[in-house]
């Protein structure tokens, strides 16, 4: 029977092509929007994952944390260079440890200037960050010892300040200090949560403390575990050493915190989860509106086709068959709208992905869900009109003008 009902519904939809298309427009737009958002969202997620692996999945960051003084939260005292040496000395699971102090400062060369990130660290920096040199050399041990005024620049600083001029051996001004460029880092690109990584000038930590910050603080310590599988163990080890060096009141929080890249990624994922929920709500609303559109047209259609329903009943259509025909019509309209929406959505996502610089990733399960859901919308919203069609009295229906 269902085959015949499908045939009858198909003929009905074909009889009124333009109206069928307009009816489904709401569903088409709703589904297309969902597909675009979901596809681009998946692309963004994938890109974040690759960027996290670019940052180095073995990397951990040690922050000074907070302490409570009479109930008020205060920044804990910063690290000192001895903390760095202690970590280097006492750990077995770390491949490298690097101090990190960061400030934004005006960097000047010739007529050009820009505010860039100044990073005070040492040679280990490139190992911890898994970042290679493109040209030049790293700091020597002697330069680190004396805090010599040398620096390594990122790609953005090079292109923005030096343009086509040779950078090697030239002198940059950083605030009131100056330094000689001895190396260039490889391009690293944008990261969602810390901006342009190439907009950076790297100087020896001692130079940074003396000439830029004017103190002996170390803001953070970057450490890298020997291996992916050792990240958790390395974290425990770092925490043990730091607890010894920075004892807190019994029962109080630690005076430091250790965070992995994975935790940053989790934070990002949870923010995307909120975003996804929000967009799903919008999608649900647009499908609801689309469904109401279908119900509206089906109600009009039942009124318009009252006489036809009478003919069908006179010919011998049962209540159930009239009901099913209208239901199937609504479901087919909505399902067809869903299909068109999926195609438009995919096309849109394919066009937008390169503009947003994210990969285009097809989500087959999402597509099936969108299709099934839109057909379901048709059934739900088609039921009321279909029932009113099925309940018509054939005599009245035949008399209907």
């Amino acid at each position: 029977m269902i085959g015949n009902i499908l045939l009858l519904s198909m003929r009905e939809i074909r009889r009124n092509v333009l109206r069928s298309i307009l009816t489904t427009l709401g569903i088409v737009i709703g589904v297309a929007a969902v597909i675009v958002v979901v596809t681009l969202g998946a692309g963004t997620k994938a890109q974040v994952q690759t960027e996290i692996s670019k940052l180095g999945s073995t990397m951990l960051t040690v922050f000074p944390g907070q302490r409570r003084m009479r109930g008020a939260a205060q920044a804990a005292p910063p690290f000192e260079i001895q903390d760095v040496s202690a970590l280097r000395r006492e750990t077995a699971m770390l491949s490298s440890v690097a101090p990190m102090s960061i400030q934004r400062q005006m960097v000047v060369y010739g007529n050009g200037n820009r505010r860039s990130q100044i990073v005070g660290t040492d040679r280990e920096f490139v190992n911890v960050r898994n970042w290679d040199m493109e040209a030049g050399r790293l700091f020597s041990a002697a330069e680190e010892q004396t805090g010599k005024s040398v620096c390594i620049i990122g790609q953005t600083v090079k292109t923005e300040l030096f343009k086509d001029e040779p950078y090697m051996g030239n002198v940059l001004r950083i605030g009131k200090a100056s330094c000689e460029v001895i190396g260039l880092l490889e391009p690293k690109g944008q990261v969602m949560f810390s901006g342009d990584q190439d907009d950076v000038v790297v100087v020896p930590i001692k130079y940074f403390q003396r000439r830029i910050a004017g103190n002996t603080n170390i803001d953070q310590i970057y450490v890298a575990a020997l291996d992916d599988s050792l990240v958790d163990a390395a974290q425990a080890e770092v925490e043990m050493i730091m607890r010894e060096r920075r004892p807190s009141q019994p029962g109080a929080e630690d005076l430091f915190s250790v965070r992995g890249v994975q935790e940053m990624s989790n934070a990002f994922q949870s923010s995307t989860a909120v975003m996804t929920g929000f967009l799903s709500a919008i999608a649900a609303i647009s499908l609801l509106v689309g469904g109401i559109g279908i119900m509206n047209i089906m109600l009009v259609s039942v009124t318009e086709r009252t006489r036809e329903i009478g003919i069908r009943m006179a010919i011998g259509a049962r209540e159930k068959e009239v009901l099913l025909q209208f239901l199937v019509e609504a479901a087919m309209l909505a399902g067809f709208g869903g299909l068109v929406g999926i195609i438009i959505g995919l096309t849109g996502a394919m066009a937008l992905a390169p503009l947003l610089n994210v990969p285009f990733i097809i989500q087959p399960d999402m597509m099936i869900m969108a299709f099934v859901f839109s057909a379901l919308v048709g059934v739900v919203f088609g039921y009321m009109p279909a029932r009113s069609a099925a309940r018509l009295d054939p005599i009245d229906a035949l008399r209907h003008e």
Partner: protein
Amino acid sequence: MPESDLSAKAHEGPVVSFEHVAKVYGGGEMAVRALDDVSFDIYEGEFVAIMGSSGSGKSTTMNILGCLDTPTHGRYLFKGVDVKTLTRDQRALLRRHYLGFVFQGFNLLSRTTALENLELPLIYRRISKSDRRDMAIEALHAVGLENREHHTAAELSGGQQQRVAIARAMVTNPSLLLADEPTGNLDTARSQEIMDLLAKLNTENGLTIVLVTHEEDMAAFAGRRLVFRDGNIVHESTSQAA
């Protein structure tokens, strides 16, 4: 209910019979007695004309004959089955398998080809696709509409539309064809053609036909007439021609 339950168990006697049928619309003081006390039998192969002015009860009779309505009092037997005992769906199945309708307003599905209109009752009867097509084309030929298969209702003249409607009513080979003022919307020449066609179907195919009309000329084609007035049969006659 299985559809087979309705298949006539080698029914003897009249195709349909009215036994003291009354139909009352509304209740209390507002009650309208459309049919008062009507009894008649129609046998296989008959061509009966039901006549009367408007309000005489002929339309009500037609609706009851077509199992679209049921009597308030009395019994309406279709092949021996009391239609009042059937459910709405069972009556639909009865129409599907044993009845054909031809209306004054043709009542074809608009924007649908002649062939598709003819297929409609066959689809409800679950006839296979290839058989359906053959039967539809054969029926169109029988009413003289060769080469009109793919014309939609709007592309056909009134006479042609009524031919399609007749083809649709007889394509399932019904036990009873009900024609409600089939020539009401047609000119004299076209009316004549339609009546000739119905008469031919009656004599050549033995199709049982009940015709509702208020025109003497059309009633003349029938072998027997029932004249209604105020809900009763006031006159019954049999023509020599039949």
